[in-house]
């Protein structure tokens, strides 16, 4: 505490100096003939108050610290006195900072938060670049021509792994994962399972918190002889299933009927390499063959299923890694190419680049589809934060002016302007600090709510606060606080004491600034309101888009029959039995098996050959594929417009298809002309087009009429996991119970059943749009409200300022309506300026919205006019009260009070 000591030293010094001065003065007085008593008294009086001692000490820095304590107390007192102001300011900031931080935390958790692994900065992910023109990635049901393919096939992974040594400490692949059937002691449950190569734990460098991890030696075809497959459980699952008991290690279980044993538990916070995805189990990739014997992942050369990561060797740069990959590219591609590729597709394969990208924060499937909406929202919340901050500026201005009298008195009594500036800044810093703390608390809640809205609990991004997050707040906050408090503080300390004491008027500068802020606020509000309007219209369009399906009284039941005991070999037989029994139920109107429910997010495409139509490009020959059986069109409510339905499964008739109308028209001109023609699917024999069904949505409502081919599901090997489409009368619950009873009887035990409806799928498929539309609407409403409040405050304040002028004019005969008109006109002028600015902003942001807009252009004049009208109405509402007040000024009283 050195400054305490120094403070005492300085006090003693100044006292000594003071004492000496007095003594000298006393002597001088005595020399002039005063008596000692007189001289003593007179010298004390001459020295005046002790105030100058403090002024003297104040020349030194630590006196400022002391003064800071006083300032702090003073600022707190002033804030407590003005409770309404403080509450509004803190709440505005808390909302603004809370929302901004929440959106940022989602982006951060998705894109930038380092993985909970050893030295995450060394991790890179491998992707394929320079892709052929026929490469398509399906995201959210939308076909995207990707810049890079983030997954590779297993044969390529092996070829790459053999050449990893020079630059990598290790390489690992993460295969598909998701909900699987798990049984402990015969008790079934669904759990989230991730399949990974044996090198996964070694290369990530994660340490088990109990037991051990599995290694490369366990990830071999067929597994280790005489041993169960090893499974690693997550910390959360260990807690939930075993209550963290050590007995969990060694516990036997089956996953998809294959035998497993729990070998270890992953540490808390470890969720793998895909942010947002959480897993209960990690198991070796090779266990896939034991669980899904029909899944040809190991040898399929065009089945790109493995997300591949590698750890850079110490000292090897990303650039060196990429140079190495370029060097081995040719050999890797040659080893992994499918020899059956046509020469054209061969060339595009061999032209691919193998690239490494930094992956310290992992890589998520979400990042491709969800990042853009988050950026849009980040822009929107930042705009609201800006509006909130400028409104605070306005509030602080008004306050500084209202306190102009007090400040002027203090200035004329000799208070240093710097000190007053400091006090005002301190007040805004206090408000900002409190607002930020509340905002951080709010942000946790906001981000949780947004995740639930966006993902329905399927995804959990880590939004906990870490150094980087605090850094973000630390960046946003001072800017906000300064914007809000600095300008008014600067202006206030320049108050001219004489002027302020006389008229209590604010300088025109602060009014101009505040007017400009209103224009800015209104502009941002218009941009937000317009964006909200576009997204709202998009959402309505999507939800009202005709799906071509009868959504009433139809459900899709997906039973997990294999895990309920049905052998794979007899799955086709079971399907037929179940279908027969369901159709026999009195409440059934129609029923049929189909591979995937429409709009469920699943899809398969295929490129067909149309005899006699050599002119069609591969892109034109690409169609959606449904595998289904007779009766589906009736059950789903799709009319057959030409020809007939698929034949019954019992006939076993293969090589027949039904086309959608769009496909029929594209290939043969019309539905009628298509019937009887043939079409070739892959390497199968030519198939006859037996019928044409009306168009129906497939997996994305944004494309309501895709060209689709309906194949009989028995055309090739019947696979498990089909959906039973059922159209029924009566209640959904009793129908589901009846179907489940039939399934249980056929399988021998109750299967896991997932029931979906078209309406539910539709709702799920527009989740992102709904989130953006909802949040933008909320944010826009908030923005309009804040802006209107700001305008009302400014106008009232101006009326207050000009009370005397207005009073005189009213006394001289100006009409009340004229005064009212002036105030209204000012409000509308500011709003007009804001609308012009907002239109420019909206035009600039149009492109990012256009990619989400559906059935409406982002520049749709109706929406923007409606948004502008809303703002004008809000401005009118905000101006009415000040205008009325202005016209009701009583000249006599106002002038008397002066």
């Amino acid at each position: 505490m050195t400054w305490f000591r120094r403070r005492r030293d300085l006090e003693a010094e100044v006292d000594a100096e003071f004492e000496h001065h007095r003594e000298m003065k006393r002597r001088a007085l005595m020399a002039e003939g005063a008596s000692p008593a007189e001289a003593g008294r007179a010298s004390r009086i001459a020295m005046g108050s002790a105030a100058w001692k403090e002024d003297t000490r104040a020349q030194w820095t630590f006196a400022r610290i002391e003064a800071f304590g006083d300032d702090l107390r003073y600022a707190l007192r002033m804030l407590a006195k003005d409770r309404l102001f403080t509450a509004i300011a803190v709440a505005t900031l808390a909302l603004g900072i809370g929302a901004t931080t929440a959106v940022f935390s989602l982006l951060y958790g998705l894109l930038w938060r380092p993985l909970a692994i050893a030295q995450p900065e060394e991790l890179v992910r491998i992707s394929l670049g320079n892709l052929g023109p026929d490469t398509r990635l399906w995201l959210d049901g939308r076909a995207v021509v990707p810049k890079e393919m983030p997954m590779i096939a297993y044969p390529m992974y092996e070829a790459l792994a053999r050449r990893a040594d020079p630059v990598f400490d290790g390489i690992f692949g993460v295969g598909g994962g998701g909900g699987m059937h798990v049984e402990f002691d015969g008790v079934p449950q669904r759990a989230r399972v991730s399949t990974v190569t044996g090198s996964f734990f070694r290369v990530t460098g994660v340490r088990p918190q109990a037991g051990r991890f599995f290694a490369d030696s366990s990830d071999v075809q067929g597994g280790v002889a005489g041993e169960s497959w090893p499974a690693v459980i997550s910390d959360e699952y260990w807690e939930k299933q075993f209550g963290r008991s050590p007995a969990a290690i060694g516990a036997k279980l089956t996953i998809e009927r294959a035998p497993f044993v729990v070998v270890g538990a992953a540490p808390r916070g470890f969720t793998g390499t895909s942010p947002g995805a959480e897993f209960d189990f990690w198991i070796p990739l090779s266990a896939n063959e034991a669980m899904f014997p029909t899944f040809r992942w190991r040898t399929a050369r065009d089945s790109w299923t493995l997300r591949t990561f590698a750890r850079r060797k110490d000292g090897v740069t990303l650039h060196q890694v990429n140079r190495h990959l370029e060097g081995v590219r040719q050999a890797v591609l040659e080893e992994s190419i499918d020899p059956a590729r046509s020469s054209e597709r061969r060339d595009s394969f061999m032209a691919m680049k193998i690239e490494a990208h930094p992956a310290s924060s992992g890589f998520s499937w979400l990042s491709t589809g969800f990042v853009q909406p988050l950026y849009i929202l980040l822009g929107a919340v930042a705009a609201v934060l800006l509006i909130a901050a400028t409104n605070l500026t306005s509030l602080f201005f008004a306050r500084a002016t209202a306190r102009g009298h007090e400040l002027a008195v203090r200035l004329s009594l000799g208070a240093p302007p710097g000190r007053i500036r400091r006090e005002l800044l301190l007040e805004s810093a206090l408000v900002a600090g409190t607002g930020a703390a509340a905002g951080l608390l709010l942000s946790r809640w906001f981000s949780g709510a947004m995740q639930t809205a966006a993902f329905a609990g399927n995804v959990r991004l880590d939004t906990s606060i870490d150094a980087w997050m605090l850094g973000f707040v630390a960046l946003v906050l001072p800017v906000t606080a300064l914007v809000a408090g600095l300008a008014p503080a600067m202006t206030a300390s320049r108050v001219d004491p004489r002027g302020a004491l006389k008229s209590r008027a604010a300088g025109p500068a602060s009014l101009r600034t505040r007017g400009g802020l209103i224009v800015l606020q209104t502009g941002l509000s218009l941009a937000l309101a317009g964006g909200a309007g576009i997204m709202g219209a998009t959402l309505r369009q999507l939800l009202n888009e005709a799906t071509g399906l009868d959504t009433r009284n139809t459900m899709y039941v997906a039973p997990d029959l294999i895990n309920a005991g049905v052998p794979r070999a007899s799955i086709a037989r079971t399907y037929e039995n179940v279908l027969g029994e369901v159709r026999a139920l009195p409440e059934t109107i129609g029923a049929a098996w189909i591979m995937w429910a429409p709009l469920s997010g699943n899809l398969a495409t295929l490129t067909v050959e149309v005899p006699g139509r050599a002119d069609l490009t591969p892109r034109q020959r690409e169609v959606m594929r449904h595998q289904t059986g007779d009766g589906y069109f009736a059950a789903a409510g799709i009319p057959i417009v030409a020809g007939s339905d698929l034949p019954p499964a019992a006939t076993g008739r293969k090589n027949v298809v039904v086309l959608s109308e769009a496909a029929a028209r594209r290939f043969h001109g019309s539905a009628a002309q298509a019937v009887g023609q043939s079409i070739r699917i892959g390497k199968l024999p030519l198939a006859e087009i037996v019928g044409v069904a009306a168009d129906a949505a497939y997996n994305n409502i944004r494309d309501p009429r895709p060209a689709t081919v309906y194949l009989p599901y028995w055309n090739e090997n019947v696979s498990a996991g089909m959906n039973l489409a059922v159209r029924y009368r009566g209640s959904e619950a009793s129908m589901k119970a009846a179907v489940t009873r039939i399934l249980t009887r056929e399988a021998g035990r109750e299967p896991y059943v997932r029931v979906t409806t078209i309406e539910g799928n539709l709702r799920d498929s527009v989740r992102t749009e709904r989130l953006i539309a909802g949040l933008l609407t909320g944010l826009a409403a908030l923005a309009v409200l804040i802006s209107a409040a700001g305008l009302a405050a400014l106008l009232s304040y101006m009326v207050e300022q000009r009370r005397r002028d207005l009073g005189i004019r009213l006394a001289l005969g100006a009409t009340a309506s004229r005064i009212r008109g002036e105030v209204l006109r000012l409000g509308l002028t500011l709003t007009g300026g804001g609308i012009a600015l907002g239109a420019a902003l909206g035009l600039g942001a149009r492109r990012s919205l256009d990619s989400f807009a559906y059935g409406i252009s982002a520049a749709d004049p109706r929406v923007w006019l409606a948004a502008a009208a809303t703002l004008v109405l809000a401005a009118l509402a905000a101006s009415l009260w000040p205008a009325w007040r202005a016209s009701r000024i009583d000249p006599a009283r106002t002038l008397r009070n002066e």
Partner: protein
Amino acid sequence: MGIRENEILPGTLDLMILRAVEREPAHGYAIVEAIRLGSGEMFRVEEGALYPALHRLQKKGWLAAGWGESEAKRKAKYYRLTAAGRRQLTAERSRWKKLTEAMNLLLEGRA
């Protein structure tokens, strides 16, 4: 009739103080006296203005302070001009000269 410090041009107090300690170190009382007598009893600096100014100039590095025994046989704080203070004094002096010349020119029509 004397002029109090707050009635004279701002900034001149510093100049007066620097001038007062130009020849030899002095304590606060002596500086007041030096200014009073040196100005033909025209300027009277008040203690409330002097000491904050002294400490401010000390902090700026134009004055240095030390303790000594005064003519009253008492411990007193003496201020002396530093090299920087001397430079400042020279600069202020020439500025002041220009100022008075300009004022003369304006008021009397001659420099």
